[in-house]
């Protein structure tokens, strides 16, 4: 009976480890930064990425207007944007963009879409489009760009 209890404890512990490892692995698939294939950009710095989604950088070096696209609240890409790139909460993001457009510093806030499919469609349609998309949802017609020199899935990539 005592041995049975030991095995049961070990089994439960290992099961827990498995669940935790699975969850961690899901988190590590990463969020990629994608642009339109016609955009010559192949790499971007974290600072530039912040400037783009904060409305401080509004054109690519080729004079193409930047067209940022973001996911609606609760999506994982939105959480990465707010927590890791802009370091804001949801209400702070709304307030920030209201102030930004009201002061005339930025023409409009990033377009918000409800799925990664719509994000892909928007990036394909707009030459200046840029979006954050979960690696597992990537499809044809967009270009993945490096962030700080790292591609998604490699060690050092910031958006996991």
């Amino acid at each position: 009976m005592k041995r049975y209890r030991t095995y049961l404890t070990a089994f439960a512990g290992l099961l827990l480890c498995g669940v935790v490892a699975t969850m961690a692995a899901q988190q590590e698939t990463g969020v990629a930064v994608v642009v339109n294939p016609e955009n010559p950009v192949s790499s971007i710095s974290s600072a530039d990425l912040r400037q783009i989604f904060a409305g401080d950088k509004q054109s690519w070096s080729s004079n193409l207007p930047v067209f940022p696209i973001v996911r609606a609240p609760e999506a994982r890409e939105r959480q990465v944007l707010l927590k890791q790139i802009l370091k804001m909460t949801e209400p702070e993001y709304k307030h920030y963009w209201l102030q930004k457009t009201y002061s005339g510093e930025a023409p409009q806030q990033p377009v918000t879409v409800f799925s990664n499919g719509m994000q892909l469609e928007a990036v394909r349609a707009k030459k200046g489009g840029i979006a954050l998309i979960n690696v597992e949802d990537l499809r044809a017609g967009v270009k993945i760009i490096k962030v700080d020199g790292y591609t998604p899935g490699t060690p050092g990539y910031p958006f996991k």
Partner: protein
Amino acid sequence: MQRSLLASGLLCFLLCRSFAQTNEPSDSAAKINALMQEVGELKAQVAELRADQARLADALSVQQNKKETGTAQTAEVAPTQEQPRTTGNPEQPGFSVPEGIRIQGFGEASYKATDARPPETAFFGFRHSANNSFGVGDLDLFVTSQLTDKSMVLSEIDFRETTDQNFDVNVERLLLNYNFNDYLKASVGRFHTATSFYNAVFHHGDWLQTAIDRPLAVQFSSDGGLLPSQAVGVSVTGKVPSGGLGLNYIFEYGTSDTVRPNILSPEGPSIDEGNGNGTIAGLFAKPLALPGLRIGGSFYHDDLSPRVSSAGEGSGSSQDRGGDGTIHIGQSIGSVHAVYVTPRFEFLNEAFLIRHTVQETGEKFNTAAFYSLISQKFRSNWRPYFRYQYANASTESPIFPDVGLRHGPSAGLRYDYNDYVAFKMQYNRTFRRQLPTINDVMLQLAFRF
């Protein structure tokens, strides 16, 4: 024994699974490569399908042309050939940005009690000569429309309550913007001048500013402010290549028409500055290393031909009571600012030196002013703030005879009930040269919709 084997098997299985998942990054890289390869293959397939489709469309058009006479219709076939090419093409899908006019509204209801005897000139719709009153203040409509990827129209229409509880309608801003790129953005129309950071960033929507009222120096000139807050003309702004320093420039040229009420006496005559065309040049840095920090300054110059108008009359209907054209004044305004704004912390500092030079006599009158505001958000919706402001104008000043020396603190608390409604309460204490000190209590419910 069997149990031991079973446990060992489970252990191996879980360890293998766990190990496999910790190697996920390299798997992801492989997955991306595989996806990219798949993309290439799919592109090739799409190209083949397109070619087939084009051939089919050609065949159909030839048949159609045979059926219908006239060569003119051949040209009309082209769109029908193009139609299927765009449908289902992954690089030209049907995504479109919603077009049209976007409207954002701001409003507030305020209450003010003051111990000034007699009360100073009121704003926010408070009644003149009243020591406590309610006012609706502004109903502010912010209207924008994106015309193309690079151009847009921005407008701010303000329905402002007057002291007799009527409303005036003012087009506060009306701008056609064109963004060539980050280094050159041009606007034409009516704008709030860049004579101060506050004036360029905060407008009539009080919900967006932390405090209830604006500091006197940057108050709208129609409420007694010291700067020419509006102009009609051209504004050009953009970045200056400067790496991490984040330098930006601004240049404005336009016509102002500043009419200031006498803030000491609501019934007294207002001063129409009779501004000529003004020029503003400014430079500010927004270092990349510290988002939210902005340091800069601007210089403004125009020529004034001040007139004294009857109380309550605007610039359009002012009847000169003398002094029209008898003196000409050169007005130069230098300003510097250092602000640090994050979603939770706000620290605004601005200082001004306004110089009026009477051209006929060479007399110079300097007016110095500054304000400093600090606020910190606690929890998710409480934001206490503190402000100190100072303005010092000569009583002999031909433009600011009513300002004198006034300075003092303001302390307040803002509570954001939700994303749309904020409640603010504020206490102002204003020390005045050779005049009694004023204590004000203000309450405001500010909202957006």
